[in-house]
């Protein structure tokens, strides 16, 4: 079975992002960019399914500008077989991304679409659910465990308060949570090999996608900063402060 893994190029998770001084957008000039951590987990899971003989081909796809070739190559170095780049600039919204992915799904007919639950830039947590809706298939979001048996996927999900296990008929969309696996590091020979793997480019026009924005970003700002408080010298002083000053305990 084919597995399609959509991935996103995002600012590296170690970077603390700030607004530009005019508040028009975030300042990403010269920031280090990486594959979104949740997407990397999705690539790893798909590659493991291939290693177990369950998947036959792992296709990675990314929607964005040309620079996302870097992340597609990185995913191929981890073991994906080929890449598809959908050219879109500037960044388009989750609904439009889901429509692009739906177009690729119609072409490739994967049994499983495996993707990160959210990207760490927009923090939307929408694309997988939207794609499942457009495809008219089941969704296993926030997966921490995935088992494939024939035409069914059993997905254990991280939910508020614990874990929930669902059974989905394939094809299905599965979104990854952090504890699904720990991605491997690419080895140098695999990085070299990845450079020769096929990488196709498609445009929004070729796919017939209208990606006009529905939501406009008016401005961005830094969140209200907390002021550092005081250092207390003893547990006794702490208890006194909490009782008499903050009045949060009695």
């Amino acid at each position: 079975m084919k597995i399609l893994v959509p991935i996103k190029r995002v600012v590296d998770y170690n970077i603390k992002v700030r607004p530009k001084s005019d508040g028009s957008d975030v300042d990403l000039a010269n920031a280090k960019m990486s594959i979104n951590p949740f997407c990397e987990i999705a690539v790893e899971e798909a590659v493991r399914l291939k290693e177990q003989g369950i998947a036959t081909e792992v296709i990675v796809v990314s929607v964005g500008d040309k620079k996302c070739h870097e992340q597609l190559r990185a995913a191929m170095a981890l073991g994906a077989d080929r890449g598809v780049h959908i050219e879109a600039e500037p960044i388009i919204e989750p609904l439009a991304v889901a429509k692009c992915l739906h177009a690729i799904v119609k072409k490739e007919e994967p049994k499983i679409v495996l993707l990160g639950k959210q990207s760490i830039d927009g923090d939307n947590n929408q694309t997988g659910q939207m794609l499942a809706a457009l495809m008219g298939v089941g969704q296993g979001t926030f997966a921490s465990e995935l088992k494939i048996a024939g035409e069914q996927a059993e997905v254990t999900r991280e939910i508020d308060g614990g874990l929930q296990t669902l059974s989905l008929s394939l094809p299905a969309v599965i979104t990854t949570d952090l504890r699904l696996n720990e991605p491997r590091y690419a080895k140098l020979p695999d990085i070299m090999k990845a450079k020769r793997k096929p990488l196709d480019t498609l445009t929004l026009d070729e796919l017939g996608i209208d990606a006009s924005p529905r939501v406009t970003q008016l401005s961005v700002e830094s969140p209200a900063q907390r002021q550092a408080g005081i250092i207390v010298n003893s547990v006794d002083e702490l208890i006194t402060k909490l009782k008499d000053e903050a009045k949060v305990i009695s």
Partner: protein
Amino acid sequence: MKTLVIAEHDNQQLKNATLNAVTAAIKLGNPIDVLILGHQCSTVTEQASTIEGINTVLTSDAEHFEHQLAEELTPAIQSIAQQYSHVLAAATTSGKNLLPRVAAVLDVQAISDVQEIIDASTFKRPIYAGNVIATVQSSDPIKVLTVRATAFDPAATGSAQVEQGTVDATTPVKLSSFVSEALAESDRPELTAADIIVSGGRGLGSGESFDLLYTLADKLNAAVGASRAAVDAGYVPNDMQVGQTGKIVAPSLYIAAGISGAIQHLAGMKDSKVIVAINKDEDAPIFQVADYGLVADLFDAVPELIEKL
């Protein structure tokens, strides 16, 4: 136009986050209906009928709604959505699972984690792990929003007697089925609803050491949370995680013990009213957001706190 709030519940109990979502809905200024999709959930309907500030409680009772599967709930919401200008749910794992699917079938762009309502189409929401707040404006005919519970006070309940109605159940789609659930059983308050939270990080060093925090929590009637470092180290289960990828909390008192204060953790707790940090590393970033910092070994300080409280 009207606003629809999707109730979160387990067929027995209305979840508190629904009340926070209702407050966000009240700020939109239009009449509000609360929709309960469930099975044998009449007690939830009764509870919701006491929420102040809403117009109608709509219920659809069907077996395939029992486990709140997004595949089954979406057609039911879609069947009535055109009557509404706004569809809201709390930004819990349940709301985040459901509403994007609803938005896609309505062909609208959902807006996640709304923390402030400026007007009927303009909202503030955190991006980049809460390091940046974006003001966004939607041009879609129906606004589909998940709202951050900690940013809105719960709506009052008790005295209201709200009109009740029903919605026809949609046909089962059967794309997914429920297998099992493993929910943490605890006598302590729920993390997202607790007034006081005691939280531990890598500084605890082991799962056993969390017993100290449980003892302190029981003294304070508090919930116990953890940083991602403590979860990744295997000390405690993931549902205790507070932070960007865990739960967002805003209690009156948050006590962070042995937590260094990575930005991903701060994203989940920095709206707490009072923050206490106990850490032996005086340079730990947690002290920059703490109202009261105690530079001490938590294994000395926490037992002393337990004894003296």
